[in-house]
């Protein structure tokens, strides 16, 4: 089939007109199993070599090619023509981050929010005597399993009207990353993270609009994770954190 791809272009090095503009490309012989990324490749390789976009693994793992496709944030490498239906596609950069060129945005503000929530494992206890891993029950691992799936593609954060309105809001992705450690019974910095997220630009900017949940290419229950962090802040402690010592004793005794 023939497909028209409408792309939001922006060239900061243009001689005269530096304003973003729409450009249409027509592609022939497109299969319904082609990914949007394949279409972008064909445009870049066959029609306009100046078209710029990020992609790395091209298989929905690295999270490089998040863009707004037909009005919704998705990964270009995970969305097939069949999923979109129709023969007109509109592609534009994700919103709320500075556009560098065409579909490439500056991810630095996004990663800055990510770093704010201490997205790393904190446990100062000595390594277990057998020198092997810190054990955890399957139920405790299950508690934060969903939020371990995040690939930091920014699709959720840039689908959030609160983030569009206020770039200082940490955004869904950073909260998901915080959730992954806050609800990990082996981690010891949950309260610090909860304090960070209790700030005015933390979780309270979330208005439960639920744009982030369907935007996630990994199907993480994003709004739910944010809700759980809010409740943990209200209680002053996440579920499970209280049980940390019990679990350690259990592990030691067994």
């Amino acid at each position, binding site marked *: 089939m023939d497909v028209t791809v409408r792309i939001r272009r922006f060239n900061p090095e243009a001689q005269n007109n530096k304003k973003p503009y729409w450009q249409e490309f027509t592609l022939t012989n497109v299969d319904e199993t082609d990914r949007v990324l394949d279409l972008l490749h064909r445009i870049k390789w066959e029609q306009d070599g100046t078209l710029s976009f990020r992609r790395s693994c091209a298989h929905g793992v690295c999270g490089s090619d998040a863009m707004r496709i037909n009005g919704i944030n998705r990964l270009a490498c995970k969305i097939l023509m069949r999923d979109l239906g129709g023969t007109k596609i509109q592609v534009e950069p994700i919103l709320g981050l500075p556009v560098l060129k065409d579909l490439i945005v500056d991810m630095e503000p996004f990663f800055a929010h990510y770093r704010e929530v201490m997205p790393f494992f904190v446990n100062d206890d000595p390594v277990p005597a057998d020198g092997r891993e810190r054990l955890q029950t399957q139920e405790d691992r299950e508690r934060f399993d969903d939020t371990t799936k995040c690939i930091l593609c920014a699709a959720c954060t840039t689908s959030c009207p*609160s983030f569009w309105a206020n770039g200082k809001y940490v955004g869904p992705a950073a909260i998901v990353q915080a959730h992954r450690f806050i609800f990990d019974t082996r981690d010891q910095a949950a309260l610090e993270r909860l*304090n960070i997220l209790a700030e005015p630009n933390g979780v309270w900017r979330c208005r439960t609009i639920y744009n982030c949940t369907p935007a996630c290419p990994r199907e993480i229950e994003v709004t739910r994770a944010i809700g759980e962090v809010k409740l943990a802040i209200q209680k002053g402690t996440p579920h499970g954190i209280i049980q940390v010592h019990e679990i350690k004793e259990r592990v030691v005794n067994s």
Partner: protein
Amino acid sequence: MSSLVLTLRETLRYRGAVGQWSWVLHRLTGLGVVFFFILHVIGTSWAVFAPALYEKEIKVYQSPLFTLGEFALTFAVVYHAFNGMRIAIFDYRPEWWKHQQRAAYVVFGLTILTLIPTFAIMFSHVLAHYAQAEIIILPIPTIIEAVSPFIIGMALAVIAAVVLSGVVGLFTRNRDMATNTGRGSRVERFWWSYMRVSGLLIVPLVFGHLAMVHVIQGVFHLTTADYVIVGTTAVNQSGTVVEFVGERWNYLLAGVAIWRFYDVALLALVAAHGFNGLRYVLTDFTMSRPLLRRAAMYACFIGGAITLSIGAASMIATIDQTAVQIAAEEQCRLAQAYSINAGDANWNPSQSDLFRAACETAEGTLPVILGR
């Protein structure tokens, strides 16, 4: 400002699910209700502090323009109430998120189901009112004149807040209050819970209030003489709204002034809920503009405090016979000036069905005894 424009434009462009539209509608209805709330609380306080002005205010509320507004207000309150409950439920049970879309549609459905009978009754009040021959219809300039003090007052409050924010900014130039730690988080934590708990408490109170004043009695019957005042056993003798308010606040059930307590509870809960909601909306769009962000916070805090104090002061004070007489004089005067029969030289409001009680009260021939 650019943040607001961008968010509005992109919200229209982004193909989010129903939750996005629920959010837009929740904000719009909230803003509408807060705006009317300010008008209504300060207006009603005039029953005590400026009875003639309040009598005129109610004629403004009975004008066609405000009748449209009344329907919009009822929609806004009902939708905001149901959607607020949806938000609260999913906030305290985030694991139920899979049902949130269906819940958003249920909210639309419940709103429509509630509004059909409500609007039917309200509309029957409108029809009955316009079937009468002698009604007062205020001309548009008079309505604008009556509402302009509120608009000017709000504009002045906004300007004052910006100026105050500018002055504070001069002294705290090097410190950005948005990045404060500790204190801010406890405040936000409190408000988050408050919005949800107060919302749930407000729902029965505000539905009761709407049912009484807008559905059962109806705005037009607030000024009907010999009409039993809703929620009391008293009759509106003068047919003035000031007597209506006075009788309700004076009404004792088992020795307790129930409507005074009811109104104080509603006032306090809504003032804090509404102005904090307004703060949410305004600060969402001004986080990167310290001057405007501070101004928004001052405007909401001071606006809330002023509205609350004026409302509370009017409920502590008592409406007496003098106030009713002043109101009756104004109603009789308005009838003389603006009734659709006003052009008829043979027509005298003192002899009309609608305004006789008010005119006689004004002349002193009909002694009004409050709390009878």
